[in-house]
């Protein structure tokens, strides 16, 4: 378990001490979940789309008709920083 890699992918900064703490903890979590591999699932179809009742296909689809959008003011109302109608973020490439 490469905790540093996981932290990097999650955009988290962690210290060496934290790596020492989390590594065994995460190993335990993964080992716990891996118990599921003991079951033989070779004859079981993967369940895709967590809301689908088994064996049932439902038609969750909508027509191509515009709805009322939130608009700029509401869209930006939760932003930590908004300027000139835009979300403002630290400089990216």
């Amino acid at each position, binding site marked *: 378990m490469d905790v540093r890699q996981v932290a990097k992918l999650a955009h988290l900064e962690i210290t060496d001490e934290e790596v020492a703490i989390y590594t065994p903890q995460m190993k335990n979590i993964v080992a716990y979940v891996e118990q599921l591999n003991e079951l033989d699932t070779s004859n079981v179809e993967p369940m895709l789309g967590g809301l*689908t009742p088994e064996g049932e296909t*439902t038609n969750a689809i909508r027509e191509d*008709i515009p709805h009322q959008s939130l*608009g700029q003011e509401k869209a930006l109302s939760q932003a930590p920083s908004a*300027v*000139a109608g835009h979300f403002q*973020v630290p*400089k990216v490439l």
Partner: protein
Amino acid sequence: MKEGWEVIIGMEIHAQLATETKIFCGCATSFGHDPNTNTCPVCLGLPGALPVLNEKVVELGAKAALALGLEVQETSIFSRKNYFYPDLPKGYQISQYDKPFSANGILTIMTAERDEHGRAKEFKPMQIRIERMHLEEDAGKNVHEGLPDVDKFSYIDLNRAGTPLGEIVTKADFRSSWQAYDYVNHVRRALQWVGASDADMEKGNLRCEANVSVRKIGETGFRNKVELKNLNSVRFMQKAIEYEIERQIEAHESGEGVNQETRLWDEKNNKTRVMRSKEDAHDYRYFPEPDLQPLVVSSEFIAKIKSEMPELPDAMRDRFMQEYGLSFADASQLVLEKDLAAFYETTAKASGNPRVSANFILSELIRELNNAGKTATESPLSAENLAELIKTLDAGKINNNQAKEVLVEMFNSGKTADAVIKEKGFEQISDTSAIEKIVDEIIANNENQVTAYRGGNEKLFGFFVGQVMKASQGKANPKVVNEILKSKL
């Protein structure tokens, strides 16, 4: 390309599907609104908001797939592609991964190498394997210019976030930049033809990326490849690939080597530059999107879409060659645009002269349309009126040069052929008795020439024709004049 080397190219095209609303919410996809106006909890990625698939995306996706020779899959699933970027509010893009919407495409394109002036040599068919076309949502737009403190900040407009895209991925089947160029143009026209996408690169609703590597001829493995981005036109893409071929061969030969990386085309300096190196290569951790059910497409639905599909350009080109006796080049040019092809077919049928129809459209009409900046549907000269003009020409009432002049006037004024011909006084005299009268006069007035002609000076025939034409002010039908002169002399 340098002797002994070959290039391997694979293409990825993102095409915006021409829907009214976004792929997973009802926000409008229309262009040019104030930033962040067309947004809602779903496309802003607010907690708890749930995506619902737009049925039009499935319809247009199926049309696009069929137009590209792909098989629409009965079941496909949406997956989350995880990465952080400010234009991606959820922290993941809803895309498709191991079960795409369509797969296993074989597409035949026409392609040609070009000479140093960019002129095509011989066009030949080539089969391209299209691995897949999957459905996904677009990200928002980053703004780096025109706003305060752009050295410290970037700005985000999420109007585009959630716009439906089809991502079309080929196998690495291309062996030259012009093959890639002809492929992108083929795809662009196919998508426009079936109405799946506006496919306009300038507006950004068609974007392409090229994966380019080189190897020595005879090698079976692949060397490091470079992903080329920021290719804002098909021509830039072709130039970027050419540049990259030279750069990579040089780097291999000097021993420096080629890094597996993403490079951008810098159109100001005509070169590619590094955007992202391998070290930052993404680990997207795809997993099935739990908020969406598998997309099931019935065979009835596919049958319905197939029945609604128009005849595709290549099939139409072949039919034009067979049915109307056109050359490959002429037929190809007529099917470059759907509107033009329809204009041609109407003209050909109404005039009863498909070849002259093709000539007039390809030389005269296209020139006038280009000058006026109009498309075939906007032509002030209708297909029906053009057909009338061609009939008038075929009936011998006007000659070819006059017909061309009449065409221009019809285009400019929108008038009918008859009206323009009358205005210009081009009506030819085909009435034999009128022409006979003129011929009799000419013969009576030129006794010396008649004697010489009958004595064997056949060159003088042209003199008589000239005299008759002059006497009729150019309106006598030359065919009829010839016939009458021959019989009377």
